[in-house]
């Protein structure tokens, strides 16, 4: 700065730690970074689920043919979903479990719809790493995931093994006694 011989400017620059040029550098850099981010974002965002995948958001399913003690696996948003018609024994067992025994405490009521307790509707991917557990097996009269040994009870709650959470209950509602809408 001294070499320019502009006394006014140079004294100013010496007294403050930043000067106009520093400001211009930072401002230019900041605008450049925002611009680069704006260009990169669409290049990454294209990886997200596309409109056709998102469009399959809700399905309706007739549960009338499922007898007590039977389950079916249906597909929703590409995910397998269990629809289980539970026996009274299973419901009783699920209600009898003290909350303190649960890794991810949730009551049986919170996992079913009032008046439809016999129906258990859950996403069928193990909350560990996503395998489909085998029904009516394991040590808690529910599901057993053979991949790494997670046991779920008759309300689909995790009881033992590496899975951290209960099987996920998707958003759903009963349109009538025999028709459910998932999603």
């Amino acid at each position: 700065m001294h070499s320019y011989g502009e006394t006014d400017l140079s004294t100013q620059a010496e007294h403050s730690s930043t000067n106009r040029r520093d400001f211009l550098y930072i401002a230019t850099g900041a605008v450049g970074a925002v611009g680069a981010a704006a260009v990169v974002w669409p290049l990454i965002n294209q990886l997200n689920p596309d409109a056709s995948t998102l469009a399959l958001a809700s399905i309706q399913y007739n549960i009338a043919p499922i007898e007590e003690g039977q389950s079916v696996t249906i597909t929703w948003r590409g995910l397998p979903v269990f629809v289980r018609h539970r026996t009274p024994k299973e419901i009783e067992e699920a209600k009898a479990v003290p909350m303190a025994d649960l890794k991810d405490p949730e009551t049986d009521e919170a996992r079913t719809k009032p008046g439809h307790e016999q129906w258990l509707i859950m996403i069928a991917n193990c909350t560990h790493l996503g395998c489909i557990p085998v029904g009516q097996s394991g040590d808690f009269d529910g599901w057993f995931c053979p991949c790494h040994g997670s046991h779920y009870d008759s309300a689909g709650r995790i009881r033992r093994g590496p899975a951290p959470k209960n099987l996920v209950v998707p958003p759903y509602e009963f349109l009538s006694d025999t028709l459910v809408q998932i999603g």
Partner: protein
Amino acid sequence: MSEHSTYVPGTAVEKWLDDRLPVVRFAKEHLMDFPTPKNLNYWWTFGAILVMCLGVQIVTGIILAMHYVPNVALAFDSVEHIRRDISGGRVIQATHAVGASMFFVALYIHMFRGLFYGSYKAPREILWILGVVIFLLTTATAFMGYILPWGQMSFWGATVISNIFSAIPLVGDSIKQLVLGGFAVGNPTLNRFFSLHYLLPFIIAAVVALHIWALHVPGNNNPIGVDVKDSRDTVPFHPYYTMKDLFGMVLFMIPFAWFVFFAPDILGHPDNYIMANSQVTPSHIVPEWYLLPFYTILRAIDFNILFIDSKLGGVIAMGGAMACLLVVPWLDTSKVRSGVFRPMFRWFYGLFVINFIALMYLGAQEAAEPYTTLAKVCTAFYFLYFLVILPVLSRIETPKPLPTSISESVLGNKAHA
């Protein structure tokens, strides 16, 4: 890079080229005249074998991509079409699939060679880290390649591994959806994995170039780990090591060819000849054999640690196992490189190798006793080796006396024989 060149352009054309782009000089310096320790054993041929493996995967892969269709409805059939209808397709597809396994055989040997002879120590830390990067990239490439035939193991392996992302707190599920392009593994996943499976080998090739650059700055380590002192310790790379490497490649091709011609499917899993089905999980999911040790560590953590749940814990352990490799140059501070002169290290190294094989075996077993407990023990030893044994040994061990030079040790061996 230092000048080892004895290159004198012979003709006017060579001279003209040498003044503008000295590629011939470069090749002569680095592929022919490069001074190489004269005591390298056959464990040192695996670097060249790995370059060959990468070449084989790229050539066979580009051919497969001419016939393969990355679409969930057609992928499975297109691989069968390659195997049955394309001229020579049976052998080309088998070479690619078996080639991936052979690639990892060579990778593991190459890495364990480095761990025994202390090749990661100064001044070769960057060289070693680039090697670990190549290992991780190759693992990712092989994982994505295994999805392409769209069999049951392809699909469920992808499901299990992509769920690893969902263990990340808060943003995990969004990241998983970003990676898969949907709520589950599906057509978008297959398409992008194919694109990346085609890209990554070329990135690997670029990192290999850096790896060899980083090798040619300090030069090779050697079985006694003593630095090169003068020209009596070395021989030119060509013809001494070009021939030795070539011979190593020929030996390596024997089991390779045996698999390709007589047992192309033996390293794969029979479930992968059933087309992917998102409604049924195979009763027992096993990744490819080369991923098993890390898979065992992932699932060994089936208990919560403080506020970290078992799933995130497993992911951290698996990442940590790989991170140990990255930082080993700073964990093993012993001044002596070669395990040959480290009486205590040798034993623990031997245990580490056995433990690694045990981890591999356990990854293929069911999640039941006694395997689950053994998996925890072996996982613990893996970390103990890097985080406790190596640093402690570096302090307490008294190494055997080192030979004063490479040529002395070579001539000394001769005198004994």
